[in-house]
């Protein structure tokens, strides 16, 4: 006789028990391994999605700046060193809206369908080749739409659509001379193909997200023509030649591995370097305007204002070249008049901020009277002699000036100032230079005032003949001069503080040579980060973002925690049942000379074999489990991830890890079961004693241990609960693996409460006085049942544990449910009291709360009285938008910098005064004012939603995240709690405009309106502001879509908890059956002494019911305690009735399981049973 055969015989003989243990291990392994495989699958699927959505596009330039289209050919023709390109495609990528008029059918009347925030890609065949599309690129008025857009609008091939996009503006629209009238244009196109979801074109996008975008592809030529970005040859009519422009370049590199790997970053640097070698000033919207006569060149911007970085770099380069410089800021004055004689006035004149000390060719000015203003005087001004004569003023006289300033909401209010004439210069020489004013198409090149492209309503009636004469003779020559610093203090904008920098070569050198050298040096001096012209390794970034995604392994292990716990308890319980049956064998083996350790090792080895086989089978089952979970994520729980493009990806290492963890956990459970036998003497083992507490050594000890455990665990639960309720447990800091301390506190509180209640059960069962058998009737039976459940206390406690852990999950999940759809607007909540949230494709400059603003926004005409009243009843709160990645829970990818909202100061004040939105752990009574705090140089305070910060950005209060390509860091100042601001960060408008001066207007709106009229208002705004792609939805719907993810996770949790309950019920049924079989003699005796079958049935049922009820109560109370911090919060919406029904169902299922045992108990014949005993 050897150990091997003994093990084999034992394994086979006790196959039922072993099979049960094995199945438990299979369940644990499948769940753990499956969770790991789900994590792998999600990661690999996201990686694949990153690759699929880009086709062969590995690198991209998409800075928003319009550059020459030729750059694509130049990049492709002269590849950067070490980078082999498959192609470079120029494109214009913009956000827009698409409309489709559905024809009337027998079922549906004609109607217009709209889609806002559509990605419009203007491309040619080069892009088509890169994205591996089979057909040819759209030409002329053709359009290709993707399936998402087609389904949204109900489009089919040959349908007509209108694509509405913003016309790229040379001068920012919210600048003084910005074009506010023609802001959008409409392309009428015919759909020629629909790109399906599976195709690259069906999902093309640069930002990592698994959600499919709405895309429309149009001809590059067509769109360029439409928005004036096409090539223009120099003609008499068009004195300025222009190259065709694009704002995106998509490139593919030949080496596929390099495209996805870290080498892509080197390639991106090389391509960016190459791009910068090819840049001209025109690509940066800059130009050098030469004045041969005056001997200087002027650096101007098409935006009219030189960006600060450009102006600084140009000044440095000029200094290097020893050039004479003259920085200038000009501004348009609407009216100038003599304070003494207001009828002496001059209209639409240029004032220039200059350096009065400038050397030739920029000075000196020839004063006919007086001199320059006193240093930094904001009250003195210099005028030319033409104006002095026009107004009839001389030195010392007061003049009034009127000009427009740029308001926050696109309005241009008039400002008035008075100046004392300090000097009068001759309109000659440096003072008679129209080149001080940069070229502005439609204005500076107009022949007369009436030809001006009016940037605002001009009062042409007041333009005098002398004004026209001056314009005719001197065009944009300034009539007034101020010191540059004074002019800047009055009229600098967020875009910059100079309108031009005039440069003269040193010593009167050749102007062309100087201009060429200056241009080259300036381009060299402008780093890619300052120009925004950086080529990014988008494919590699996508792969990286996929790798750093939400940890689905952790998530599913978390979800499956109680399932794993149930499986482990079940393994321990079943193994223990097996051991209990064989306890005399253990005694015998000890008696014949095996040491207790050898006996334990023998049984552990037997268990290990079962566990190992179970682990192997479980590893296979893990694949099936993962498949099921992936299937669930694609179907039942699609709300959690929002994509159907998940596939099973099995990594052997994950299975091995799952196997190892499950085997270790199961072996620990088995070891623990065996350990329970320690301290029981051989004699007692031979007598069948299997419970240490029933042994001589354990008597009395166990109840004390159980009592103490109950107290300690209860204390831990109470302390943690208090900590959570009082805010001592931080909910904004990550503990580990993406779990916050609050989540950890929830789990620990829950487990501690469970342990306390179950240890309490153990102590109760131990107490002989718990239920003395006395009295009569059902109560007496109940007491006898209770005493019976104390017979195998550990077995009973384990059974109750199974029920309790499953109940815990179900109750906790129910307590976590929220139903935002029914949440009314409440100021101190996640909706902030707002009913609607809206976004636009094109920024709106104006204040939609005022009639003027609405008129300017183009929605003033034709509004009925009722509509006007409706709009007037609403409050529309605007936010500026810096587009970024979607960092909400709707995006699984790791995000770097989310979309940022800029909050105007009046909105900050409003939010503060009205105490809007609910904040979590934010150290301020007025959290919105935190946005105004000075947190040091390059540190900008921001607010973010708790979910976004914790789960997507992994940041807590006080932590920072960098703004790419800048030295600026965003510091988390406060956290919204379950707000509509999920996925974005919020900063003050002031800081926003410093950081992102190019972002004009408002694209995000919160609207407060009577919920009953919200749909009506949304329809009205969407229709009237359709050119902006205005897209409104209820805040509750937006919150619901965010919470759908959370609620989906909860239902996942619930489903897996349900599986745990199934295991619990199985365990309960097994234990009950075993109890009955063990006690069949006793039960037969009861029947023999006169108990009816009903009595015996009730006895067994009561024993079962007692354990069930204890388990249900322990699970319910523990879950409610753990969830208490959440239950006392706003928005908790516990479906109590459903929960009660569910728990009742659990009870009924458990009792049904016990009925099998009851049936067994009364089935056996009394006499035979007594005899067999």
């Amino acid at each position, binding site marked *: 006789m050897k150990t091997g055969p003994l093990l084999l015989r*034992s394994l086979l003989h006790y196959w039922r028990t072993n099979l049960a243990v094995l199945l438990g291990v299979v369940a644990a392994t499948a769940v753990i391994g499956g969770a790991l495989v789900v994590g792998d699958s999600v990661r690999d699927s996201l990686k694949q999605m990153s690759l699929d959505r880009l086709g062969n596009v590995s690198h991209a330039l998409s800075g928003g700046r319009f550059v020459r289209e030729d750059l694509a050919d130049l990049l492709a023709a002269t590849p950067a060193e070490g980078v082999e390109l498959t192609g470079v495609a120029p494109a214009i990528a913009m956000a827009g809206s698409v409309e489709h008029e559905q024809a009337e059918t027998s079922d549906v009347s004609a109607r217009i369908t709209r889609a806002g925030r559509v990605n419009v890609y203007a491309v040619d065949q080069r892009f088509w080749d890169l994205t591996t599309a089979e057909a040819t690129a759209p030409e002329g008025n053709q359009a290709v739409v993707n399936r998402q857009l087609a389904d949204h609008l109900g489009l089919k091939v040959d349908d007509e659509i209108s694509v509405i996009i913003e016309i790229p503006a040379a001068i920012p629209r919210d600048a003084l001379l910005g074009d506010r009238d023609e802001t959008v244009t409409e392309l009428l196109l015919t759909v020629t193909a629909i790109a399906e979801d599976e195709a690259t074109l069906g999902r093309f996008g640069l930002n990592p997200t698994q959600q499919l975008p709405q895309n429309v592809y149009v001809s590059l030529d067509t769109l360029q023509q439409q928005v004036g970005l096409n090539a223009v040859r120099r003609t008499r009519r068009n004195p300025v030649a222009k190259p065709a422009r694009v704002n995106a370049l998509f490139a593919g590199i030949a080496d596929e591995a390099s495209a996805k790997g870290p080498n892509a970053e080197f390639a991106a640097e090389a391509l960016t370097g190459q791009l910068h070698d090819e840049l001209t000033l025109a690509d940066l919207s800059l130009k050098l305007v030469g004045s041969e006569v005056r001997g200087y060149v002027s650096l101007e911007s098409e935006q009219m204002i030189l960006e600060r970085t450009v102006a600084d770099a140009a000044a440095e380069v000029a200094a290097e070249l020893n050039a004479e410089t003259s920085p200038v800021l000009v501004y348009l004055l609407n009216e100038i008049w003599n304070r003494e004689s207001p009828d002496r006035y001059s209209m639409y004149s240029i004032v220039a901020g200059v350096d009065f000390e400038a050397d030739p060719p920029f000075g000196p000015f020839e004063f006919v009277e007086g001199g320059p203003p006193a240093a930094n005087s904001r009250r003195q001004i210099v005028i030319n002699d033409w104006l002095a004569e026009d107004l009839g003023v001389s030195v010392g006289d007061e003049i009034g000036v009127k000009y427009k300033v740029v308001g926050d909401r696109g309005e241009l209010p008039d400002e008035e100032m008075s100046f004392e004439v300090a000097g009068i210069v001759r309109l000659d020489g440096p003072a008679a230079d129209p080149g001080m004013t940069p070229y502005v198409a439609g204005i500076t090149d107009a022949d007369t005032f009436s030809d001006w492209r009016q940037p605002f309503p001009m009062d042409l009636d007041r333009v005098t003949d002398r004004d026209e004469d001056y314009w005719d003779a001197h065009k944009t020559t300034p009539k007034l001069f101020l010191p540059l610093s004074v002019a800047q203090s009055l009229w600098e904008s967020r875009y910059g503080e100079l309108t031009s920098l005039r440069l003269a070569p040193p010593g009167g050198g050749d102007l062309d040579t100087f201009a060429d050298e200056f241009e080259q040096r300036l381009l060299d001096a402008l780093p890619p980060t300052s120009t925004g012209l950086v080529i990014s390794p988008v494919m590699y970034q996508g792969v990286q973002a996929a790798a750093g995604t939400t940890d689905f392994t952790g998530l599913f292990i978390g979800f499956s925690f109680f399932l794993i716990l149930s499986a482990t308890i079940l393994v321990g319980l079943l193994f223990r049942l097996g051991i209990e049956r064989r306890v005399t064998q253990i005694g015998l083996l000890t008696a014949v000379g095996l040491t207790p350790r050898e006996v334990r090792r023998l049984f552990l080895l037997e268990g290990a074999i079962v566990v190992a086989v179970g682990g192997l089978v479980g590893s296979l089952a893990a694949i099936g489990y993962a498949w099921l979970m992936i299937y669930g994520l694609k179907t039942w729980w699609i709300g959690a991830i929002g994509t159907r493009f998940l596939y099973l990806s099995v990594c052997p290492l994950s299975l091995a890890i799952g196997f190892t963890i499950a085997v270790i956990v199961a072996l620990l459970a088995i070891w623990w079961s065996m350990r329970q036998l320690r301290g029981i003497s051989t004699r007692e083992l031979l007598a069948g004693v299997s419970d240490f507490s029933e042994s001589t050594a354990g008597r009395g000890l166990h109840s004390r241990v159980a009592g103490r455990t109950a107290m300690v665990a209860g204390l831990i639960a109470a302390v943690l609960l208090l900590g959570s309720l009082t805010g001592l447990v931080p909910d904004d800091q990550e503990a580990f693996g993406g779990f916050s301390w609050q989540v950890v506190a929830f789990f620990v509180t829950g487990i501690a409460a469970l342990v306390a209640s179950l240890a309490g059960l153990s102590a109760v069962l131990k107490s002989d006085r718990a239920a003395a058998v006395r009295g009569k009737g059902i109560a007496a039976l109940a007491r006898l049942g209770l005493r019976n459940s104390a017979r195998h206390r550990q077995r009973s406690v384990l059974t109750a544990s199974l029920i309790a852990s499953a109940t815990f999950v179900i109750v906790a999940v129910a307590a976590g449910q929220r139903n935002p759809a029914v949440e009314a607007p409440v100021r101190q909540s996640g909706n902030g009291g707002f009913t609607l949230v809206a976004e636009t494709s094109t920024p709106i400059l104006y204040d939609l709360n005022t009639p003027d603003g609405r008129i300017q926004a183009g929605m003033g005409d034709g509004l009925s009285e009722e509509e006007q009243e409706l709009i007037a009843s609403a409050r529309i709160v605007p936010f500026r938008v810096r587009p970024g990645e979607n960092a909400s829970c709707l995006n699984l990818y790791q995000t770097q910098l989310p979309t940022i909202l800029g909050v105007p100061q009046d909105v900050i004040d409003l939010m503060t005064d009205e105490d809007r939105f609910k904040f979590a752990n934010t150290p301020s009574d007025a959290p919105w004012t935190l946005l105004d705090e000075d947190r040091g140089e390059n540190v900008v305070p921001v607010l973010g939603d708790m979910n976004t910060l914790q789960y997507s950005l992994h940041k807590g209060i006080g932590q920072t995240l960098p703004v790419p390509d800048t030295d600026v860091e965003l510091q988390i100042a406060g956290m919204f709690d379950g707000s509509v601001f999920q996925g974005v960060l919020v900063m003050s408008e002031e800081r926003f405009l410093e950081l992102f001066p190019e972002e004009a207007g408002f694209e995000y709106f919160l609207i407060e309106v009577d919920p009953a009229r919200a749909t009506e208002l949304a329809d009205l705004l969407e229709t009237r502001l359709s050119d902006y792609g205005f897209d409104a939805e209820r805040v509750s719907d937006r919150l619901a879509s965010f919470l759908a993810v959370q609620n989906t996770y909860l239902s996942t949790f619930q489903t897996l908890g349900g599986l745990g309950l199934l295991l619990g019920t199985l365990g309960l049924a097994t234990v009950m059956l075993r109890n009955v079989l063990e006690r069949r003699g006793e039960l037969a005796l009861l029947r023999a002494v006169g108990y009816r079958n009903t009595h015996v049935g009730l006895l067994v049922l009561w024993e079962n019911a007692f354990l069930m009820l204890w388990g249900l109560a322990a699970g319910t109370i523990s879950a409610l305690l753990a969830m208490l911090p959440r239950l006392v919060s706003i928005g908790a919406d516990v479906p109590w009735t459903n929960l009660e029904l569910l728990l009742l169902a659990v009870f009924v299922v458990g009792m049904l399981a016990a009925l099998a045992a009851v049936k067994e108990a009364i089935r056996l014949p009394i006499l035979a049973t007594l005899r067999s005993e």
Partner: protein
Amino acid sequence: MNESPPALQLSQITKRFAGTAGPLDILNGVDLAMSGGEAVAVTGPSGSGKSTLLYIVGLLDEPTGGTLTITGEQPLEFDTAAQARFRNRNIGFVFQDHHLLPQLTVLENVLIPTLPLGGADATAETRARQLLERVGLGERIDHRPARISGGERQRVAVCRALINQPKLLLADEPTGNLDQATAESVGSLLLEIAAEQQTMLICVTHSLELAGRFPRRYELVGGRLEPR
């Protein structure tokens, strides 16, 4: 003439249990000496401590006081592992309940005590077969315990107790679960085999009939062995 020292010597063995109503002395100074091949029967009423005494001698329980010498060694002073080894080599047990492993055959059950010695070799197996032949179960060696009678199971248990040729065979109510005829047969078998193997045999029993067949008989009275 020098008498050889006894192979088994119990001196002043005591056993006290802690009870709710105060300590309870079960054994009050038990003395017993036995030589090889001797057979002793111990009788006494239920709760008199017969089995406790047997388990103390079999190193499965510890006395409160006294010494135990078996073949010149004092195994009560050994650690648990050494006691197990000692028990394996020197002591065989026959219990009231046979405690056969249902998953093993009759032969394998007999060979169970060879496990601590590294498993059964051919010699052990031959011996097991011989023992089974000797008790009349030669035809049943491949049967499982469930397929043999109660008397047969107890005979297998006797063989199992003897497989390692112990110096001391302890029997705890070996016939307690058997009918009269079978009990008689098992009792005879125990005495015969003990004599054949020159094994000391201590048998604890209620059965005066069985005890009457033993050359030395004691009754446990007041925690002491009284010769009968």
